[in-house]
């Protein structure tokens, strides 16, 4: 069986994707930087490791050789992306172009799932709801700018690329909030459960109907809320007054999204917002009892 390549496969999201693909009996090739931690991956049946750098052409060609499909997660994310524009473009844009070029040479029919972001839409506060994939893109930061450029490159060079514009990801574990939440208190937000993102990615790479398409990946109707309500739910679980939260004065990139097509094709919205809150509550109860 030819492996599915997962770039960035040793990162936190990457490991979850690798694990899920293995559960679906796919063989996987992980491509990531040599400095990453491979302890959960190395020596495991059905997992092959290629250590390298996506900015190096020879490494990319070695990673792509003989694969059946690609899940491209490797990227420089905020806040690091905002400090290093040149490196962000080298990894997020040129790295993506190289990967597509290598794949087109070795297996032009293979699917390439590219993880982009809804942040590429920019400020959509005054737009008609919900935001569709045909909405114009306007970057508010370097990260979004790099994702827009990478999407453009893929659309021109890789007809089987599947672009997933992923919303903010909610992880069901207790985490420190940012000093200032990246949205206004009354702004519309629709995040998505981490496990559902993994489901969407894995569904996209194995689904012929997804090839060549652009999808919004967000939580669905139960996740549609406002910034203040979302933070209040989290703070209530932790017993912290909502007055402690600080929100942006200017709109961020968050909004509600049209996910009708992505859900129809990928069937990934499996965790409601209420179920996410219950998972968080369970996690907190567990921590309180330790």
């Amino acid at each position, binding site marked *: 069986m030819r492996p599915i390549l997962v770039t960035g496969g040793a990162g936190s999201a990457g490991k979850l994707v690798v694990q899920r693909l293995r559960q679906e009996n796919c063989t996987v090739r992980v491509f990531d930087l040599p400095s990453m931690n491979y302890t959960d991956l190395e020596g495991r049946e059905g997992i092959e490791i290629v250590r390298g750098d996506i900015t190096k052409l020879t490494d990319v060609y070695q990673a792509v050789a003989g694969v059946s499909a690609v899940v491209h997660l490797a990227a420089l*994310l905020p806040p690091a992306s905002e400090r290093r524009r040149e490196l962000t473009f080298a990894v997020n844009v040129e790295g993506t172009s190289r990967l597509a070029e290598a794949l087109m040479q070795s297996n032009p029919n293979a699917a390439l799932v590219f993880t982009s972001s809804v942040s590429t839409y920019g400020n959509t506060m005054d737009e008609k709801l919900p935001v569709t994939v045909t909405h114009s893109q306007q970057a508010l930061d370097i990260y979004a700018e790099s994702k827009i450029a990478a999407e453009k490159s893929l659309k021109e060079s890789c007809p089987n690329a599947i672009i997933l514009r992923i919303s903010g*990801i909610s992880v069901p574990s207790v*985490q*420190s*909030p940012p000093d200032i939440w990246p949205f206004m208190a009354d702004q519309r937000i629709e995040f998505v459960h981490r496990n559902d993102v993994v489901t969407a990615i894995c569904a996209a790479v194995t689904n012929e109907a997804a090839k060549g398409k652009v999808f919004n990946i967000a939580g669905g109707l139960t996740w549609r809320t406002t910034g203040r309500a979302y933070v209040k739910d989290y703070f209530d679980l932790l017993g*912290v007054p909502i007055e402690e939260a600080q929100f942006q004065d200017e709109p961020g990139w968050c909004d509600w999204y049209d996910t009708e097509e992505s859900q129809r094709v990928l069937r990934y919205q499996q965790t409601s917002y209420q179920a996410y809150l219950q998972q968080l509550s369970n996690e907190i109860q567990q921590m309180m009892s*330790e």
Partner: protein
Amino acid sequence: MTAKGIENSETIIESCKLIIAGLDSQEAEGKEVLQSAIDILEDMKEKFFLKTNLAIPPTNACKKDVIELQLIVEGGDLSRFPELIDRFRGNMEKLLKHAKMEGVIIT
């Protein structure tokens, strides 16, 4: 209103200071543990974790330990000091483990 976790931390810091002052040159290793707890809690005071309900059980446990330590130091019988300082160290480690909250992921 001050969060219970912050209130507990302030009590622990004050107690640790009093215990260190009361020990003079005795129990050097124990004094290091107490000083380290002061430094950690001073550093943690502005962190979100101490504002949450999650901080209440571990800070309650640490507070109970230092109050006991303070009583035996004030009483002058240090025979239980090593046992209590070990328990306090263990509870401080639990507090630190709980306080290790990773950053929010926003793509």
